[in-house]
């Protein structure tokens, strides 16, 4: 299984070695004038939160030394004075796996503040319904570094979640990550210098639009991973700007995103019912769009539950604007592929597909129309994963089809 992702992994290993000698770190925020007392007020306010409480955090830079948490209370709002005015700095954090952990809190809103330099995840919200994250910035201020925490904005096991006008910078996994959730809108956000800019994983019904994803390793990812309580499907990715996601992969080996090749624009892995349209995608050096199965993602299949469906199906790519990209793919295998097929100055086509299909679903040797990868307005390269990548070929004509448009996600608030 030397796969296209593995190619990225090989290059990634080399990067790790380099990193050990010279971690890319800029200056972190100066805390010499920061407020060190307010944290106790905030902790008490979180403990005392009652249904309907509004916790207002004033402008200022506040040192927080331990993970904050809000648990099992509905209708709480946490509100700052702006994502550049109210700054919770966790640079001196001593305990806690997250900056702010919110559990079992329905009808929860957090807005207008920044969470910086947490040891682990910045903002994790789990087991909650009706969640609004608005104008929140999560950032590791030294820039892209493997030393940064994993996730920036991280709702998981949530229902009805809106993330808008927020900013995520520097996460060593995903800047904005929605996992194992239902009914999701991620719009008008900016994700930069993360390994994954925006990621939807094992989730149902997500709309991702109006976002800017740039300078990440991969811009926008739609994933299904095995061995989770639930799979997901059904995502629309539209009207986004996904460009120059060429930052080296600084993720932790073993995490799913650590295998993502640098220079990936939009990546769908093992997920079904994904509609990708009206995006502006460009100058992502491996490929502007990658469609792949778990088979090419570089994991042992011994540990994969038997009922996991690794095949991305009913993928519809149309109406996007592409510019450049694919000119310098991450990893020697893809680089060799590019040169062999397209010459020294050629580029990987805008849609790179690993070529895996579920043979059990084939009828007379072809996949039924309603399961196919349909692409219009872009060239498709079939990398021939099932054939050991022996016979990669341009397959644009085979994907000239379409699926009915997916319905918009509607939130109840």
């Amino acid at each position: 299984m030397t796969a296209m992702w593995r190619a990225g992994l090989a290059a990634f290993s080399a990067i790790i070695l380099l990193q050990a000698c010279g971690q890319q770190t800029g200056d972190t925020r100066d805390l010499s004038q920061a407020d060190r007392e307010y944290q106790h007020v905030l902790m008490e306010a979180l403990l005392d939160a009652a249904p309907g409480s509004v916790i207002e955090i004033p402008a200022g830079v506040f040192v927080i030394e331990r993970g904050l948490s809000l648990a099992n209370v509905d209708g709480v709002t946490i509100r700052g004075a702006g994502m550049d005015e109210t700054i919770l700095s966790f640079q001196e954090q001593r305990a806690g796996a997250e900056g702010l952990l919110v559990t079992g809190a329905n009808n929860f809103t957090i807005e207008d503040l920044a969470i910086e330099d947490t040891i682990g995840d910045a903002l994790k919200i789990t087991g909650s319904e009706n969640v609004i994250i608005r104008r929140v910035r999560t950032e590791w201020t030294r820039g892209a570094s493997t030393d940064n925490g994993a996730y920036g904005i991280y709702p998981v096991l949530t229902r009805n979640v809106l993330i808008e006008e927020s900013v995520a910078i520097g996460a060593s996994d995903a800047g904005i990550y929605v996992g194992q959730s239902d009914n999701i809108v991620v719009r008008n956000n900016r994700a930069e210098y993360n390994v994954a800019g925006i990621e939807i994983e094992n989730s149902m019904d997500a709309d991702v639009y109006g976002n800017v994803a740039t300078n990440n390793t991969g811009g926008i990812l739609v994933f299904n991973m095995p061995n989770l309580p639930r799979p997901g499907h059904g995502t629309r990715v539209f009207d986004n700007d996904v460009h120059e996601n060429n930052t080296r992969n600084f993720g932790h080996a073993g995490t799913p995103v650590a295998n993502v090749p640098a220079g990936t624009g939009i990546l769908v892995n093992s997920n079904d019912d994904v509609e990708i349209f009206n995006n502006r995608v460009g100058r992502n050096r491996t490929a502007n769009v990658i469609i792949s199965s778990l088979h090419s993602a570089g994991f042992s299949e011994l540990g994969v539950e038997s009922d996991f469906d690794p095949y991305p199906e009913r993928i519809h790519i149309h109406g996007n604007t592409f510019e450049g990209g694919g000119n310098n793919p991450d990893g020697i295998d893809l680089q060799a592929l590019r040169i062999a097929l397209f010459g020294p100055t050629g580029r990987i086509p805008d849609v790179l597909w690993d070529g895996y299909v579920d043979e059990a679903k084939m009828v007379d040797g072809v996949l039924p129309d309603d399961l196919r990868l349909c692409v219009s307005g872009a060239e498709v390269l079939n990398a021939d994963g099932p054939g050991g990548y022996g016979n990669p070929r341009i397959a644009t004509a085979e994907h000239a089809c379409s699926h009915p448009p997916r319905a918009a996600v509607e939130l109840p608030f």
Partner: protein
Amino acid sequence: MKHTLPLLAAALVLAACGNDAADRPASAPAAVVDPAAWETATVFHASGNPARLEDWGQLRVEGDRLVLAEGVVPYGLNTALFSDYALKLRTVWLPQGAEPAAWHDTDTFDFPVGTVITKTFYYPRAGGGFERVALEMDPDAHFDGRALDLSAVRVIETRVLVRRDEGWAAIPYAWNEDQRSTRLARTGAFVDLTLIDAGGRTQVLNYQIPDVNQCAQCHVTNAGDGQVRPIGPRARHLNGGYTYAHGEQNQLAYWREAGLLNGGPEAGGAPRSAVWHGELELSGMALEAAARAYIDINCAHCHSRTGHARTSGLYLEPSDPVGPAFGVCKPPIAAGRGTGNRLYSIVPGDSHASIFTFRMETDRPDAMMPELGRSLAHAEGVALVARWIDAMAGGC
């Protein structure tokens, strides 16, 4: 279950004998107890957060002893959660006239309203300074079945779990430096200690008293109802001998006799976790049983289908088979730095390639497991689980 490492324990008792003035902070001269401060009778506080442990009457400082009130029953667990090598004095009390707790095969017993459970975290003093504490493996050191010897230990905190009409509440108290009084610590606290082992080696120990929401992170074992629950008082953890003031007895048998518990099979037919207090060099069935007991009490309160870590798809309850969902060749999902650059949770036969052991060994807050409750690695626990993984056949 007591005195599993008698020689070591004896050595530490000797080491801890330096009970001189240097073991107290300068600001706290002698053992001054305000006798009026400690309630003499057990009290059920049906609401609110009493300002001091003293208000509960479950425990009481008398001279150099922390004494259990009448009707307050101490208990131990066959295998315990690791908490930075702190020793734990656990007690349970049911109000007069309350129905006994109802038996459950696997879950926490169903305790009546009014039940108060306390857990007091302490270390033997190592001498040479108030912050110097000793690493001790005997889970009941300095406790005689009725009282804790305050001259020999430093008490850090006492956590109260109280069963009220609306459910359980968790209320943490920090012990003051005078070691005679406590204060409510809802937002938690840090306590800087130096831990000294039997060989004289020292480790910096940044002990963390959790805040109330952090209590819930472990004790909400079913995220579906969001209710705090005790974790230890389950049949399998209690089904073993305990040295009471009146002598040794099986805890399930004593609880029934004392009116604390009703129903369920006799001890011989009841679920039972292995007893493990740091023994190394186990093999075969004993190794398997000890590793599973350790993983159960340290991991499974979160890593279950209803717990906080259900997002990971890693299920570590005693009833879960050792397969992909237990971590065998399972790639991580959202581990971040917690992978330690390793690819699978458990690689059979290779603990050094397994994320499991990495997350137990590291003390980085974003990578370590459990996420809460320790700042040090549990060397003996890591060794136990590593040995268990190394004994597995296969690979990934």
